[in-house]
């Protein structure tokens, strides 16, 4: 699916450049000029943040073949970390006018809990949103991969962890806002969230970070490590016989994907203005899988395309077909996977092939999505 690894400059990089130019420069410029409304810019900021999450999922699932159903936890850690910081930044400006976040008052907590204290520091909050997920992933990875827990068992295990985390996060005793989560942020890093300028800047930062993450992910999958990862997906046993320490590679990629998820949460929370446990659990984790599969698993562009298109579709459909949208979206999932197992990217590849065939007049058997149906995950 990916082009053969090569050290030399390649055409893919051009696409990254175009993507960056369109989303990081073009869209905000269009917004400034009034062609794109503030609402849509903000909405796209959300999609792009989620695209980073999808990138991480693609690394671990698409490339390495490990289905992690805990990605939403890492996303949640990122979002909650920055959320806590923002809550503290705006403390005292809430309904109650108390120095602790509002939800603590109705939980009868009047002094800031100890684990909240470090989050007054922005550096700590950002660090925690990136490193905490990576750390947690490493711990889970060491405990599972070293134990040769793999395949479905890993998926179900991470699902159980996500379920437990979700259950706990919903409890108000956790002092993280319970079902309500964290909301009513007033400012981020000193910039008021009610000004369009801040939101625009956040959008630009998100787009830039997405491009950066894309480059990082490209670098990983095109390196030797990337090859090993794909080999793990295709035949881990053989790789072990060849003397590779597959567990180490798996832990590495799991940690990277977790850090990307945390990064995504970090950018998501200030733009959307709320983070709740409903974004941290089994169902949202599964949704990430859906995005990647829909866009095209095992290709980085697929992950981006999937995250942005599914979320965009949901926004549009909930507004235009409030009663029918789950049926349309569900039907789309079925259709895309059945007809184009390689997702939207596979569809694009197929179109390209058809075009090429017509152009060259070559009669060749159309091969649907090479490479995807041969391996089991």
């Amino acid at each position, binding site marked *: 699916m990916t082009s053969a690894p090569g050290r030399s400059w390649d055409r893919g990089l051009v696409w990254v450049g175009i993507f960056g130019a369109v989303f990081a420069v073009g869209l905000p410029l269009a917004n400034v000029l009034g062609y794109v409304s503030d609402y849509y810019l903000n909405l796209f900021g959300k999609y792009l943040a989620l695209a980073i999450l999808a990138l991480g999922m693609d690394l671990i*699932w698409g490339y390495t073949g490990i*289905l992690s159903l805990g990605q939403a936890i890492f996303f949640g850690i990122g979002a909650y970390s920055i959320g806590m910081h923002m809550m503290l930044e705006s403390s005292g400006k809430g309904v109650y006018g108390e120095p602790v976040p509002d939800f603590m008052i109705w939980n009868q907590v009047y002094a800031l809990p100890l684990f909240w204290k470090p989050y007054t520091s922005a550096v700590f909050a950002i660090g925690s949103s990136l490193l905490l997920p990576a750390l947690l992933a490493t711990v889970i990875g060491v*405990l*599972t991969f070293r*134990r*040769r*827990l*793999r*395949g*479905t*068992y890993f998926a*179900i*295990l991470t*699902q*159980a*962890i996500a*379920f*437990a985390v979700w*259950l*706990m996060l*919903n*409890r108000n*005793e956790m002092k993280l806002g319970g079902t309500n989560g964290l909301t009513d942020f007033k400012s981020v890093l000193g910039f008021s969230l009610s000004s369009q300028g801040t939101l625009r800047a956040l959008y630009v930062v998100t787009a830039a970070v997405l491009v950066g993450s894309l480059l990082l992910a490209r670098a990983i999958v095109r390196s030797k490590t990337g090859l090993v990862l794909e080999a793990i997906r295709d035949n881990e046993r053989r790789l072990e016989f060849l003397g590779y320490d597959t567990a180490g590679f798996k832990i590495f990629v799991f940690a990277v994907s977790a850090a990307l998820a945390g990064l995504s949460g970090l950018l998501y929370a200030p733009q959307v203005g709320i983070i709740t446990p409903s974004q941290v659990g*089994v*169902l949202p984790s*599964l949704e990430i*899988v*859906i995005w990647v*599969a*829909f866009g095209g*698993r095992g290709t980085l562009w697929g992950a981006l395309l999937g995250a942005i298109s599914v979320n965009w579709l949901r926004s549009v459909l909930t507004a235009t077909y409030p*009663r*029918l*949208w*789950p*049926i349309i*979206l*569900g*039907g*789309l*999932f*079925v259709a895309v*996977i*059945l007809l184009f*197992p390689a997702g939207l990217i596979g569809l694009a590849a197929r179109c390209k092939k058809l075009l090429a065939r017509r152009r060259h007049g070559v009669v060749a058997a159309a091969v649907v999505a090479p490479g995807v*149906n041969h391996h*089991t*995950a």
Partner: protein
Amino acid sequence: MHTLVAVLAAAWVLTGLGGRAAAGPGAFDLEAAASRLAAPATQKDVLGELAGSSDPAVERLLRALKDGALYAWKGRTVLLGDDGGLTDVAGRPVLDSQGQPAQLESGAEAVALDEAHFGLVRRTLERFEVFGRDPLKRQSAAFRLGTSGDPAAIPVLARALEGETNGDVRVALEDALAKLRLRSSDAADRLGAVKRLGWRASEAAVPQLQALLAGETDPAVRAAARTALQDIDRFVVQRNAIGYLFNGVSLGAVLLLMSLGLAVTFGLMGIINMAHGEMLMLGSYTAYVVQEIFAAWFPGYVDSYFVVALPLAFLVAGVVGLALEWGVIRFLYGRPLETLIVTWGVGMILQQGARLYFGDQTSVNSPTWLRGGAEVLTGLIFPWSRIFIVVLALAALGALWLLLYRSYAGLNVRAVMQNRAMAACLGVSTRRVDAVTFSLGTALAGVAGCALALIGTVDPEVGKTYIVDSFMVVVLGGVGKLVGTVVAAVCIGVSNKLIEPAIGGTAAAVYAKVAVLVIVIWFLQWRPTGLFAQRGRAATETA
């Protein structure tokens, strides 16, 4: 006739309805009492005299007084009925001089009930309930009088006990009497009451016994009260232990029932069917539809709708499963993750389809034979619906086991699942086996959904609440092992229900669930392939 009226107060109504029966001495008294009731000065005295009465005419009189339907009319005291007609205290219609039903003149003022006596009237009225028709109401009335701490209720209760034939109500009456006698001035009376309450292990009497102990001077009564409290305490602990165990087993049965189907589709076939929850939902809606059909066309047999719904749920979910396999899943064998996404999409469609068709407002009524429960010990009831689910889970398990391990078809299924190529070589139609096995799994989910509708909700999201638990059970048990699924379900159920009361606090249910999850996660670390691992290569290559 006269003596009858005088002795048996209840017969008054009959004589009253019988027309112009001569007024007995009792009736005369009542008439006088009524007129005194109408005078503010004597109201309190009369209320005191009537307080111990069990006479239905007195009840009628007091109720009228409370509701403002008692009037002074031409020197008599009359009651205003709901239909606007007037009756006298004995319930006979009042006629005017022309012999026509009398009417109140407009502007007539009802007899006023002094605010200060309102409570007394209410309490007196409550006492009448121990003579009511419905035994359940008599029972709870007896209970209420027992806790009222009102000694004036003792004679009423005693009288009720004389005439009572229903065993449960008799016990309730005796308990109530004992509770009230705890306040008796006679030490022997108190001792008897304490002993009875201790012997009955009556949890309801604990506050009264404690109150007694606080003020009691008689050493014998004190000692007895202390023993009684200990007895009650011990009984409650033992009873609760049995209760928790039953709760655990019944939760285990619920888990088993909903995981059995998954044990087939996921455990045996390795298909991650995210629409499994929706198959469960289909079962629940089948129960609902059958109930509605019965209510509309066979209202006389509505109680037996569930007997029809259960096999029908099996069929409906089975057929939908067959269609799902034929239309979608057969293209995706060997690609479990694509299956996951497609079935997720199918689940979304089914869910919203159900919402659009049925709306969000549906309910399944348990048939009357599954309502309530069996009182195993005082205060411990095993609900019939839970017992039914335990039995159903066992039956489904037995049937599945026979099918898989004791039938030719089951042999085919196991052969295909273990070595597809070899089975195909030997002439087994693997396509057909796949389709039938998958459909069996979904059909079992349908049965589970139908049964769970008895204790839970029927709504489009019902599947989502069960799916994670179901996967957990199957994985913990060991994929591909039926016995593992059973053991895992019961283990999770019982440990959950034993941990829950042990934790206490405001969130026991959640913490128990999290604790069980942690145990499961830890256990899978230690034994990644579950409780009962499948031997051989298949175990490590299931993905």
